[in-house]
Each structure stands twice: as structure tokens, then as C-alpha cells.
């Protein structure tokens, strides 16, 4: 039994190594497939779902940086999503400014809020931090609900203009929205990839794995934690801005605790501390209720079960926990390998 397990693990590692070797071919092939997707599928309904998968992949990656890499559990990620959506919607509805200007502003405002929420991490960790983020998200939602002069309260904001690119209005029908979200997704993925591979990313992983040891090694943990919150909030805000212009109607009920938990489920299911896991998590959790319409009412029961079962049997997520490369020791150093 033990042997069998070992073998399958080796086989798996072998598969990943093979995939790594052919990265040069696999990634461009995926790109072409993604670009050609609207012409292959030719269905607005499916394209809409795929666009939402992309939006949630961005959200998953942004929370993944905070929770997956830095290990700071956030239960209020919907707040940044909401702030991005509202900021972009309010500016573009009131002043008629293009999406391509309002989206970065929205993301920046969300990042500023991320900074504010990041500040308590100076004092809090673990459970207390999780609760604070939850409280933060509820307070944000209540502000959107009650600040009627600006946010139109519970009625929400409607008739948000569609993004226009070089005079063409982008819609789902002409696939403009799909290519726009693809561009945003690519941007987010690249930036996340470079962050994770950089000194910053290594510092975050160190904080997640052992905060005390990280401090001892001279990692400025409060600095890095706050930056993680700022970057995570920025991309959640970007996703929110896109969402507002996609659906063209937002109200406070879109951004509840359920949304935060959905994003967290994506991160956990996909695998904390991975980027490709976020795509898988979003793909599964967003397409799942559409594929299984007959169990629609059991959807949230399923989310709950996913959280419980994953924590019980595979806390590292579907794609998490694969250490592919050995640490490179300096030359001439002898290490006992078991």
C-alpha cells in the first residue's frame, strides 16, 4: 500500500516535470486556444460563464497572494471587489469617463482600502485578523447600503456604460468583453507570477511558513504583509471594475459574505500558494452551479462540503503542495539526502 502511494507520487512528479519541459509549447497552445475560444464555442451563454470564470480567477489570484502566499486569512475579500465595482461605476456614470481610465482609479482606491485593512495586521494574526477582515467587509457593505446620495443605496447603480475601445462598444456579443477580461487576466497572471518569483514573493512564503523564523532572518514582516494586502486589493478592485461594466448593474447584495467565501473556496480548492490552482478553482466552482442546474439549491451546501472535506483530507488544495525544484545548495556543500 505504502509502496503504491510512493509510486503514484513519483509518477505524478514525472508528469509535472514533463509538463515543465514542454512549457514552451503548452503555454502558447493554451493562449491560442483561449484566443480562438469564442469562434469554437459560438454561444453567448457559455462565453458569459467563461468571462465570469476569468473574473473569479483574477479574484482568486488576488486573494491567493494574501491568503495563499502570505498566509493571512481574509474573510472580507468581497469588500475590495465591491469598492472597485462601485468606484468605477460611480465615476463613469456621473462623469462619463471611459472604463480604461476608471478601472485603474477603482483599483487604486481598492488598494488604498487594502492598505487601511492591512494596518491591523501589525497587531493581529490568525483568527483575529480573519474576523477583522469580515467586520471590515460588512462595514463596507453597510456604507454602500446607507450612503444613498452617492451609491443609490439598496437600489444599486444601473445603466453603467459599456467600455469602448477605439470607438467600438465592447459587448459579450461581439466578444469584446471576453478579450478585455482575457487581457486583464493575462496582466494579473504575469504580475502575480513575477511577484511570486521575486524577493517579495519569497518573503511572503517565509512569513506564511514561520513568522517567527522570518523575523529572525530579517524579513520585515509588517511591511510585506501590508504590501500583500495592497496588491491583492488592487487586483480585486480591477476585477470589480470589470464586473460593474460587464453586468452594468451593481447593488450591495452582489458583494456579501457569500462572495468572500466563494473567493476563499476557490483559493482553498485550487491550492494555496499556487497560481494555476486559482484557474482550476474558479473553473470548477463557477461552472459547477451551471453544469448541475438540478442541484442548484444544494449549491451552497456543496461549497460548505468542499471547505470541510478539503480541510480534512487535502488542506493544501488540488494543485498545492508540489515542491518541484530542490533548493540549490552552494557548490561543494555535502548534504545527506534520505
Amino acid at each position: 500500500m505504502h509502496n503504491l502511494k510512493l509510486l503514484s507520487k513519483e509518477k505524478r512528479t514525472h508528469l509535472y516535470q514533463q509538463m515543465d519541459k514542454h512549457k514552451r509549447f503548452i503555454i502558447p497552445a493554451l493562449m491560442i486556444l483561449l484566443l480562438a475560444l469564442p469562434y469554437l464555442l459560438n454561444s453567448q451563454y457559455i462565453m458569459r460563464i467563461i468571462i465570469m470564470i476569468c473574473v473569479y480567477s483574477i479574484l482568486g489570484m488576488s486573494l491567493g497572494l494574501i491568503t495563499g502566499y502570505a498566509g493571512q486569512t481574509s474573510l472580507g475579500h468581497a469588500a475590495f471587489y465591491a469598492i472597485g465595482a462601485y468606484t468605477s461605476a460611480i465615476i463613469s456614470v456621473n462623469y462619463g469617463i471611459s472604463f480604461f481610465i476608471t478601472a485603474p482609479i477603482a483599483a487604486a482606491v481598492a488598494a488604498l482600502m487594502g492598505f487601511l485593512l492591512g494596518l491591523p495586521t501589525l497587531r493581529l494574526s490568525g483568527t483575529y485578523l480573519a474576523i477583522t477582515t469580515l467586520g471590515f467587509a460588512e462595514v463596507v457593505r453597510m456604507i454602500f447600503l446607507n450612503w444613498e446620495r452617492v451609491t443609490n443605496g439598496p437600489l444599486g447603480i444601473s445603466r453603467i456604460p459599456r467600455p469602448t475601445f477605439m470607438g467600438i462598444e465592447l459587448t459579450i456579443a461581439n466578444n469584446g468583453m471576453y478579450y478585455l477580461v482575457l487581457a486583464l487576466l493575462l496582466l494579473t497572471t504575469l504580475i502575480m507570477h513575477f511577484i511570486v518569483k521575486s524577493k517579495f514573493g519569497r518573503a511572503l512564503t517565509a512569513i506564511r511558513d514561520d513568522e517567527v523564523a522570518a523575523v529572525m532572518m530579517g524579513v520585515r514582516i509588517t511591511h510585506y504583509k501590508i504590501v500583500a494586502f495592497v496588491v491583492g486589493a488592487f487586483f480585486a478592485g480591477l476585477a470589480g471594475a470589470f464586473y460593474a461594466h460587464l453586468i452594468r448593474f451593481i447593488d450591495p447584495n452582489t458583494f456579501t459574505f457569500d462572495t468572500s467565501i466563494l473567493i476563499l473556496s476557490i483559493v482553498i480548492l485550487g491550492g494555496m500558494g499556487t497560481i494555476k490552482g486559482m484557474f482550476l478553482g474558479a473553473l470548477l466552482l463557477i461552472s459547477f452551479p451551471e453544469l448541475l442546474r438540478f442541484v442548484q439549491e444544494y449549491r451552497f451546501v456543496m461549497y460548505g462540503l468542499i471547505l470541510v472535506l478539503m480541510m480534512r483530507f487535502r488542506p493544501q488544495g488540488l494543485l498545492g503542495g508540489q515542491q518541484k525544484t530542490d533548493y540549490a545548495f552552494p557548490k561543494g556543500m555535502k548534504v545527506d539526502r534520505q
Partner: protein
Amino acid sequence: MVTEQLINGLTIGIIYALIAVGYSLVFGILRLVNFSHGSVYAFGAHITLLFISMEFGIIPALVASMMLTGALGIAIDKLSLEPLRMKGSKPISALITTIGISYIIQNMLMIVFGSETKSFPRLFNYGSVSIFGVNVGSTQIAIFFISLILLVILTVIIHYTKIGLAMRGVEQNAKASYLMGINVNRVVTFTFFLGGVSASIAGTLVSGYYQMVSPGMGFMPGLKAFSAAVLGGIGILYGAVVGGLVVGVSETFAATYLGGSYRDAVAFVILILVLLVRPNGLFGKKGIKKV
């Protein structure tokens, strides 16, 4: 007017205290925020309603609900949290597990009982009394005293019984208590049972007070009660009571003077402020982090 609001605040506050005690007990022993507590509370209210609609009478219905909700608490611990403890998982895994359980319970309630708000019979209706020129409903008086008696009973259990001694021992040091021959898992299970029972009573009282039940009813009170527990110093029983009263009174005053829509925000503002200024709460001891 002020006195009336104060009494309304105290009534809802003592119920928050009763829910907060459930959080506090579990946190004291496991260092875990039991997110499923709010949905356990909703479960308790629904079971009481179920038995009342089957014409059991209020008291037998409440007793049955207490037992079933207590059993649900035990099941949560045995099925999901105990295996995690055995495995020695990270604390955050247990937190996320309880969120998952809360989703499962709340949505199962929705599927079984329907997602709409159902009406609940008034529990005590003997008119109102005038105390110092202020009209106080008999429901409010009953809720206040029932909750107070329950809190006293809980305090007695924890301070003067053998299992209470074991609970306090586990709270201070689980490993040492285990070496002293205390069955730690049984103590944890008992704590979940107590939490379930108090949640069921609180759920029934609140449903009787507002005369309505819905599957999502546990979410807000759960979070507010948690704020109350944190405010008083989580893990400390009388702290939870004081915290509950403070949250209840301040949100009632906020609803009166700032407008009803700000009612729910108050508890969270209190929570965030407490966590930032004094994370250990009003009565909490300063924890020393060991390396």
C-alpha cells in the same frame, strides 16, 4: 424614551450574551472561533418551531430542541473538528471548517424548512407592566430573567462541578490536563453540547421576541455575539455577558439616534476598534506568545 431604549437594548443584549457564551466556551478551550455557532442557533429556533407546530407545547418543544441542538453541537465536533485535532492541522483549517459547516447547516435548513421567514408564536404574553413610569413588556422581562438564570447555571457548571473543573483545566493547558487523567476530547464534546443548548435557548427566545424565524437568522446575531465575546475578552464568561449587554444597548441607541440602517454596523465598529486597541478585550488577560 431613553429608559425604554435602554430596556430594549438590555433585552437584546442579554440574548447576545447567551450566544456569546457559546463562542466564549469553545474559544476558551480550543482557541477556535466557531463560525457554525450562528447557524446552530438558527437550527435551534427551527427545531423549536417544528415541535411547536406539532402541538407539543412550548416547554417540551424547547427541551426537545435543546437536546437536538446539543446533539448537533456534538456531531459537529465529532465529525469534523476532532479529526482535525487528531491530525494536528493548522488552526486556520478548523476555522475554515466551521465556516463550511455553517454553510451546510444554514442551507440544509433552507432546503428543509423553506427559505422564507416563518412566523413564530409569542412565547410569554401577559401584557406589559409599568416600572417607574416605563412600559416594559412581559416578554422582555421573561427573556431577561430566563437568560440571566441560564447564565448563572452555566457559571455554576463551570465553577462548581467536576466537568467544569475539567473544562477550566483544559482551557489552561490541554496537555497537562490530559496527563492528569482528564479525557480532553470528552471535555471538548461537552463544551460543544453546552454551546448548542445555549444557542437553542437563545434562538427560541429571539424567535419568540420578534415572532419570526428564517434560516439566515443566525448570521447577524452570530457575528454580533462574537463581537460581544471579543469585547468582553473572549474565553471569559462574565466578559461575554458584559460585552453582550454593551453591544445590545449601543446598537439600540444607534438605531434610535442615527437611523435604523446603521444598527448592524455598530457591532462591527465596536469589534474592529476593540481588536485594534485592546485585542484581549475588556477583561482579557494579556497572552504571552511563546516562541
